[in-house]
């Protein structure tokens, strides 16, 4: 169902804003995770993981959901479609698992922020702190790949997309 142009522009603005915001928030999270891993001060490390927990729930998770939602809206509301172009499929297969893994990994972040685990930060939870840095770096890479796909839009139409293009006159799509 095609969206009228004003609504399409609003949806596009929302999608770009939330996607770039998601990327920026993960970059900030990575900085906090690296600082938490590098410090030898348990109190400082605990404070940093509390900040990381707040960032996760207040910024990263809502932006991830909004980016995914507005992306789906953009796909379904324009002639780009959800399954017509390989770049849209590729972007979707990057962001859906990334959101799932993000939600799975909120638990270890909460563990590190838990005051009950403050004394274990230097010992038993060291591996978890390393993992937080690795996860954030991997998430940045995934989000960067999605951004490149959205900007470059590599060519390739699926058989379904070719069928749809043959059935209906093509309109100029507007999306990221």
């Amino acid at each position, binding site marked *: 169902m095609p969206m009228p142009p004003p609504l399409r522009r609003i949806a596009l603005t929302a999608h770009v804003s939330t996607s770039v915001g998601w990327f920026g928030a993960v970059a900030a999270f990575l900085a906090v995770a690296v600082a938490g891993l590098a410090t030898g001060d348990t109190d400082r490390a605990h404070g940093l993981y509390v900040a990381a927990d707040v960032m996760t729930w207040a910024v990263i998770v809502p932006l991830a959901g909004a980016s995914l939602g507005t992306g789906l809206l953009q796909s379904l509301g324009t002639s780009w479609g959800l399954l017509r172009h390989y770049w849209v499929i*590729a972007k979707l297969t990057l962001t859906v*698992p990334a959101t799932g893994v993000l939600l799975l990994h909120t638990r270890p972040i909460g563990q590190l922020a838990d005051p009950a685990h403050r004394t274990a930060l230097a010992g038993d939870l060291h591996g*978890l702190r390393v993992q937080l840095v690795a996860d954030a770096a991997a998430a940045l890479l995934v989000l960067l790949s999605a951004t490149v796909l959205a900007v470059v839009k590599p060519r390739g139409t699926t058989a379904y997309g070719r069928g749809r293009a043959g059935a209906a006159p093509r309109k100029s799509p507007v999306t990221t």
Partner: protein
Amino acid sequence: MTPSPPAGAGMPRWFKIFALVGVVLAGAFLIAHLTGNVPTHGGH
């Protein structure tokens, strides 16, 4: 807008590489988690 390939063209090479890398990474992720080689998810 990037022009579409001619009708009848198959899956583009970049997408095949993307899918192959994705499958390898997903497999590595699953194996690492199944074998417990990641210091994660309450494993302390």
